[in-house]
């Protein structure tokens, strides 16, 4: 199949959706499909061969964080040309709801369109005001995929319609076989707790973890906290406890695998805005214990606590108790990680890509039967 994939966010600053699209494109190409990805990126950003860029993007505040988005007449013209040149059998748009390239492509396209909804929580007054326009655009989507129950609910609440749930993919084997790094591995009496995510974005919850540090250190004086991610953070306010917190800064994919595999515990203290929780699945794949806030998305990934430990969102004391509990009970933690390792199979790309291709085929078939214009793009 000739598959056109639209990535809403810039490859200049890689994030979850970009990684998902890169892995999906890779998995599809491996299966012999022809793939082109349209994405915003500056011309000097290295991107894979199959990525077609719309040129520069602009940093815009949206939905509580800053995203680099492509919009305006130039992005629209390039999108139209990409659609016309691509002659795709199926167009797969990611995140058509936020104002970005996904919506722009949807606006310009017609035909067999599949869309994946990644995020939960859409707080946009402008989007609500634009609802009548948005609905007519959303009706062009022939097959909707949501990465989680929360993302599905966002779609249902905002735009009507429904979606099949296909979780984000993870290369389980990559994490399961990742090399342990001695400097990040726990020693007897020196357990390691890992955090991953933007340091200065409140909803990633680093603040909740830092507030729990003194309590955890009181119970386990040797504990180390490894904090990886972009952004600035001040730990001076922790006083003597600051010594236990090591800021690693941004880490690449390889280091991320190593960190998750080496740590004794991965903590996800997010306070909201999470629709799936891919890092939880990665930690589970790496065989690492997970302590997470009880957001809906995390509860589902951790099967209500059967695969990891949940604590009330934003409650630093409860987070501290959960971390202490896990670190003081290695046997119980091992039972959880064993169950988690068995459960992550359904998130493996081999499984996920098959389910996505099945959606493509269903949509394309429908067009072959009912539309003379199957595979043709207006624009």
């Amino acid at each position, binding site marked *: 199949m000739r598959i056109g994939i639209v990535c809403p966010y810039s490859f200049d600053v890689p994030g979850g959706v970009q990684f998902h699209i890169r892995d999906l494109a890779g998995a599809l190409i491996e299966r012999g499909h022809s793939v082109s990805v349209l994405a915003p990126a500056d011309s000097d950003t290295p991107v894979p061969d199959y990525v077609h860029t719309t040129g520069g993007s602009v940093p*815009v505040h949206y939905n509580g964080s800053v995203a680099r988005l492509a919009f*305006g*007449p130039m*992005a629209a013209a390039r999108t139209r040309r990409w659609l016309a040149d691509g002659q795709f059998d199926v167009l797969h748009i990611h995140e058509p709801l936020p*104002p970005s390239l996904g919506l*722009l492509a949807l606006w310009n396209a017609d035909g067999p369109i599949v869309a994946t909804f990644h995020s939960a929580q859409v707080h946009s007054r*402008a989007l609500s005001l*634009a609802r009548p326009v948005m609905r007519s655009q959303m009706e062009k989507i022939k097959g909707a995929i949501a990465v989680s129950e929360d993302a599905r609910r966002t779609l249902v609440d905002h735009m009507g319609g429904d979606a099949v749930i296909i979780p984000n993919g993870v290369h389980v084997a990559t994490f399961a076989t990742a090399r342990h790094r001695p400097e990040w591995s726990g020693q007897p009496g020196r357990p390691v707790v890992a955090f991953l995510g933007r340091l200065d974005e409140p909803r990633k919850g680093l603040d909740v973890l830092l507030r729990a540090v003194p309590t955890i250190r009181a119970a386990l004086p040797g504990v180390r906290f490894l904090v990886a991610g972009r952004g600035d953070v001040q730990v001076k306010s922790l006083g003597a406890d600051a010594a236990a917190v090591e800021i690693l800064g941004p880490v690449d994919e390889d280091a991320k695998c190593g960190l998750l595999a080496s740590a004794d515990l991965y903590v996800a203290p997010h306070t909201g805005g999470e629709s799936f929780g891919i890092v939880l699945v990665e930690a589970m794949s790496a065989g690492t214990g997970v302590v997470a806030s009880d957001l809906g998305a995390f509860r589902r990934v951790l099967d209500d606590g059967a695969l990891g430990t949940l604590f009330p969102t934003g409650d630093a004391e409860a987070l501290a108790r959960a971390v202490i509990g896990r670190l003081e009970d290695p046997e119980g933690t091992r039972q959880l990680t064993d169950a988690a390792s068995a459960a992550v199979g359904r998130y493996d790309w081999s499984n996920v890509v098959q389910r996505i291709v099945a959606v493509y085929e269903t949509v394309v078939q429908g067009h072959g039967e009912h539309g003379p214009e199957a595979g043709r793009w207006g624009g």
Partner: protein
Amino acid sequence: MNGAEVALIVIAAVLVVGWAVWLSAQRLDRAHRRVNTAQASLVHQLVARSVAALDLAHAGVLDPVSSILVAESARAALTSLTDDGARLTSSGPAQSELSNTVRQALGHRQDVAQMDELGRELVGELASAWYRVTLARRFYNQAVGLVRRRRSGKAVRALRLAGRTPMPITFEMDDTWPEDLPQATESEGRTVS
């Protein structure tokens, strides 16, 4: 000189100094009031610009993505001035982001030329409001500069003539109208240099 003459000279000197101080205080007060009126005018023009951007966003002349993003940033720029506790001085980043978003959404001269009549009219109104922002900001910053110069004088500082009035600061934002697009003054048949 007898005692009466000395007293007379001292009284005269005190009167002269007092008069000079009073004049200086008057000038400082005038400068402060000029900052206040310039600030009111600047806030007014910034609000007008946000409203013009909102009109453009809701007119359906931009693509849907640009419409939503321009509306979002215009709202943010507006609430950064009108929310409880909002202050002009902290509104700069929101105003700059509106500028940035509008520039990206409008593209080039030929993109605006291709819009329908309503679209071109709304862009013209936005350009006009935008131009007034650049004027109001320049006047405000000039007024602030004057107060700051006056207040840096030795006598003003020694006698605390400014009282507890906070030191005004200039308002910084990105207010560059895209060079390539029709200027606000073009349609009125005038040019700015």
